[in-house]
């Protein structure tokens, strides 16, 4: 804590260093707050504490290997990251993905959205003093992580989507697990709403707090539920459908109050919409059919074929030793991650490694709006404003 001299005379404001080690910054965010009493005069956001050079690392990996590092950016929604990256490479290769794989991708990314929103709800609530919601949310999230573990073998770093389709055939009985979640979760979300939606403390802490007008949100490049809480209906799934989203019937929740409460309502409604999509996907997924595109040289061949066909064995060897080389060119693929527009830009130079991979992290753009949301407000509202943006520092710093 330091006392500073201001232009008008002796110390009137105080600079407070919040973070990077602070539980309510959701990772390693540092905010320098200039305070006048309890009012925030100026907020300076400092990031980079989690920078691991993922984009540089990708340049040294083959296209298939780079999938594993996409998990580690937005660690609350690894499947959304996998999807953005795989779709970008598939666009580069002009691969046609079998419908069955597309529907399974949709189903799992929507479950990811629910799991991510549950973490957001729990942590946001605990930041604002509602302890029990946190415990309930993490209990439900565990059920979803079990599904991810069932299909991919991993709870969090799934790497389940591969270029051309999926890594493995989902195990027998996985749909029953999804059904069980579909049956139990809506009632659980009702429970959270009982605890919060009309709770007077919750209303006092979120209504009229963290105001962000639609014009400001667009200017700052905010996307996802943070933008939709300001009355803009931009959702990549509707604007630029990918992976067969155009075949699903769902609403995009939009609120116009522009405050933390609006964003809370948007996310809760979004969880219900996601479950609707999951339900439709379950009905659509054919019980049999390929989960990988028919693309020799890009998609690893089946084990059986490798034992009987020489060509398959050669392809297998080539994919895992030198990789495959997409044509030169640049693509940008956007998907709707739980946090907003997740973009994957890939520049290929015709070699088996991405010449440049860039992730447009939704949290990166969203966090820029924090300054606007907190300046002139109370210091207690800073916590609410950070929470409502739903940032993941892993993808901001990459």
């Amino acid at each position: 804590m330091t006392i500073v001299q201001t232009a008008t005379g002796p110390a009137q404001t105080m600079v407070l260093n919040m973070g990077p080690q602070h539980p309510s910054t959701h990772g390693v965010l540092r905010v320098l707050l200039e305070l006048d009493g309890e009012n925030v005069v100026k907020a300076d956001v400092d990031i980079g504490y989690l920078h691991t050079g993922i984009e540089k690392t990708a340049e040294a990996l083959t296209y298939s290997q780079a999938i594993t590092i996409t998990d580690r950016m937005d660690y609350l929604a690894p499947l959304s990251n996998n999807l953005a990256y795989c779709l970008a490479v598939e666009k580069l290769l002009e691969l046609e993905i079998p419908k069955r794989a597309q529907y399974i991708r949709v189903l799992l990314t929507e479950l990811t959205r629910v799991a991510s929103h549950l973490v957001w709800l729990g942590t946001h609530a605990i930041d604002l003093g509602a302890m029990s919601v946190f415990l309930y949310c993490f209990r439900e999230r565990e059920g979803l992580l079990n599904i991810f573990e069932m299909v991919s073998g991993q709870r969090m770093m799934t790497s389940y989507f591969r270029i051309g389709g999926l890594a493995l055939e989902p195990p027998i009985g996985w749909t029953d697990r999804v059904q069980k979640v579909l049956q139990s979760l809506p009632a659980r979300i009702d429970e959270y709403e009982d605890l919060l939606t009309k709770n007077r403390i919750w209303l006092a802490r979120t209504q009229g707090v963290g105001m962000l007008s639609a014009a400001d949100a667009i200017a700052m490049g905010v996307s996802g539920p943070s933008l939709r809480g300001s009355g803009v209906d931009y959702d990549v799934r509707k604007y630029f459908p990918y992976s067969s989203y155009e075949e699903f019937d769902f609403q995009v929740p939009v609120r116009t109050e522009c405050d933390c409460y609006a964003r809370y309502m948007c996310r809760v409604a979004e969880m219900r919409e996601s479950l609707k999509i999951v339900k439709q996907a379950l009905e659509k997924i054919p019980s049999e059919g390929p989960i990988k595109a028919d693309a020799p040289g890009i998609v690893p061949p089946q084990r059986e074929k490798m034992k009987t066909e020489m060509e398959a064995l050669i392809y297998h060897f080539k994919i895992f030793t030198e990789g495959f080389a997409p044509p030169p060119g640049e693509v940008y693929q956007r998907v709707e991650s739980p946090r907003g527009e997740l973009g994957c830009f890939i520049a290929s130079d015709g070699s088996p490694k991405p010449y440049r991979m860039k992730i447009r992290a939704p949290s990166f753009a969203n966090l820029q709006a924090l300054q606007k949301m907190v300046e002139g407000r109370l210091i207690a509202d800073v916590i609410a404003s950070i929470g409502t943006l739903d940032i993941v520092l892993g993808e901001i710093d990459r």
Partner: protein
Amino acid sequence: MTETPDLEQNPTVARIRSWKPDAIEGLVSFRGELTILLPREHLFPLAEFLAAAPELAFTYLSDVTGVDRFPVEPRFELNYHLLSLSRREAIRLRVRLQGDSPVIESVVPVWPTANWHEREIFDLFGIRFEGHPNLRRILMPDDWEGYPLRKDYPVEGPR
């Protein structure tokens, strides 16, 4: 990559052409994505025009990405991914910069979100943005030397 005359028929391209015929250096369409190549000095006026013209309304800047083509000159490439929310259209602007003068005008006055994106490119590629309100390193430590995403940045051994 193909460069075909029918890209001129694209309404966005036609509108830019009618505004300033020499603002576009080239057009590329790859995998259904339109890229407009620009000379450096036209970026800022065109950015203002694209954001302000009501029939274009490219008010949303998704991303700015740098690419280093070392040792090819012009070495640096900047890609601006724009979105028109009202018309549901996306385009990409591309500017190439010489390695000996990696300087370009900042688009922060047009799209405030460019603030951090440009800081990131400054941090990792060493491209300077003139008129940027706060051009400091953002991901790397302030006292870091070198620009890690450049292709001639050593990935092992002493820097």
